[in-house]
């Protein structure tokens, strides 16, 4: 293409409008091009840090600030021979552990000798929704990405990446990525007014943890109470309502019927914009019980309920109330 810009000296210079256009285009590309590729690199760095969190072995102290609540936990992650293993152990307050081996999860409460187990849905494995070009293209529709000044976190120099929402339906994210390991050390969710709603990150971390002696789920002995939750993927025709496939950049992913018993079933449908998630819960209204329709909030998480027909509809997600309202208004009930 460059040859178009330079004519041989012996030939008369003929300037046509198209040459001007091409020149302008090339100059524009030279100026703007690096910025585009820089954004792409940031998206790729972010996606890659997500992969590193799965591939590396590490342990550290994880501190979360959610609303007014803060919690410190010891966290272990190991890529073990039997799969991906994680253990989160609360350091504050009553002892509690959370374990994950691949898609199987357990919450263990030693003082009450209780275990809550659940299998995660493989269909919602986050990586599959984020690392692809298509997923990043979706994210680009609703967030702008930019690098902010570097910061030192937990002893590591980090690249700070900001995802700024392009509309009022989602919050801002900040990610602190360790430059050495390309590992996400801290994530933050901020309101549209810049208030810090949630912060989860490592206050100390080691990537040299050797081999954990036990990478299995907790084996309940006699005297322990185990509660299992099964999650079955729902088909659209099982739901009494419909929602658009895409709503303000949130795309339909999967529906689940989570059940502890035949009598205790929970219908959940999940939407995501690739970063924030919205769950839609529908429950047949129990005449005997009145449920509040107040807005509940915990950190960035917010939910709103509404009675629609004979159902209590609850929308919950790390999104502003505007988004909850949009989902509530968009429910279309099938003829019953």
């Amino acid at each position, binding site marked *: 293409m460059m040859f178009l810009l330079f004519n041989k000296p012996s030939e008369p210079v003929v300037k046509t409008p198209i040459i001007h256009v091409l020149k302008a285009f090339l100059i524009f590309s030279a100026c703007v091009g690096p910025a585009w590729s820089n954004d792409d690199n940031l998206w790729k760095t972010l996606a890659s840090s997500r992969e590193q969190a799965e591939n590396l072995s590490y342990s550290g102290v994880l501190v979360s600030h959610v609303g007014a609540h803060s919690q410190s936990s010891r966290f272990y992650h190991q890529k073990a021979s039997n799969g991906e293993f994680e253990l*989160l152990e609360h350091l504050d307050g009553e002892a509690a552990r959370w374990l*994950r081996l691949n898609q199987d999860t357990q919450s263990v409460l030693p003082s009450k000798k209780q275990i809550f187990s659940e299998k995660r849905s493989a269909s919602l494995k986050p990586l599959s929704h984020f690392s692809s070009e298509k997923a990043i293209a979706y994210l680009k529709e609703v967030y702008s990405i930019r690098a902010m000044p570097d910061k030192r976190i937990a002893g590591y120099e980090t690249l700070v990446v900001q995802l700024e929402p392009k509309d009022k339906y989602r919050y801002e994210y900040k990610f602190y990525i360790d430059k050495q390991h390309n590992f996400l050390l801290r994530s933050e969710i901020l309101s549209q007014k810049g208030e810090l709603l949630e912060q989860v990150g490592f206050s100390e971390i080691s990537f040299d943890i050797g081999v954990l002696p036990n990478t299995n789920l907790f084996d309940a002995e006699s005297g322990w109470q185990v509660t299992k939750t099964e999650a079955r993927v729902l088909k659209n025709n099982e739901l009494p309502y419909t929602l658009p496939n895409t709503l303000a950049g949130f795309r339909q992913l999967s529906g689940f019927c*989570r059940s502890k018993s035949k009598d205790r079933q929970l219908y959940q449908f999940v939407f995501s914009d690739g970063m924030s998630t919205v769950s839609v819960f529908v429950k047949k209204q129990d005449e005997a019980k009145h449920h509040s329709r107040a807005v509940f909030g915990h950190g960035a*998480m917010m939910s709103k309920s509404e009675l629609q027909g004979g159902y209590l509809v609850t929308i919950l997600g790390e999104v502003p109330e505007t988004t909850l309202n949009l989902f509530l208004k968009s429910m279309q009930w099938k003829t019953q």
Partner: protein
Amino acid sequence: MGDVMGKEEQISAMLDGELSEQELAQVLASLDEGDLDAWHGYSMVGDLIRSSELAAFHDEPLLKRIEGALEQEVVVVAPQLKTVLKHRFFEAFVSIAAAGRASFAMAAVCFLAVLVYRVVPLVDGVGHGQSVAARSAQTVGAADLALWEEYLIAHHHHSVNGAIPSWSSMGRIDPRNLVMIGQVDEKPKEDSSASDWLNVWRDAPYDVSVVQQTQ
């Protein structure tokens, strides 16, 4: 009960000046002796809340605790809700007293205690550059909390924070709350630990302005 509450709400709205002339005439025409008592009670409660002179007769340590707690809180402001909240402010008293659990005076004290210990800021007038003048509170029943927690856990299990590893999602959950799931009826009605981690808002906490209280 539904009718009774309907009338009480109407009286409360009337005191707040929220009824049209026609509605006002209808309510006044339908007032019976019990309604007049309720009206009197609401007025007393309103006076108690609004009047610094009346407040001066009340328990000094309690007032100091309330004042201290209010000063420490960041107030979340929802100016658009001013009238709604004002209305609900009275409804909270009404519901306590109507249940026969306390007199109106006791209801006022109980309500203020709830205000301090169970959180939930509110407001008025801030949109006009004034300091916070009123607050309201939302208490949550055991069934509400248990259902909300169940939803929260379900959401975290299936949330798709694309770029964020699972530690981020799970680090936000308190596994101790799982105990409550499936045990709605056994959960204590006044769960003091819940207020440590759960805030309950009547309306959007983050779509609104945040100001430091300047009383």
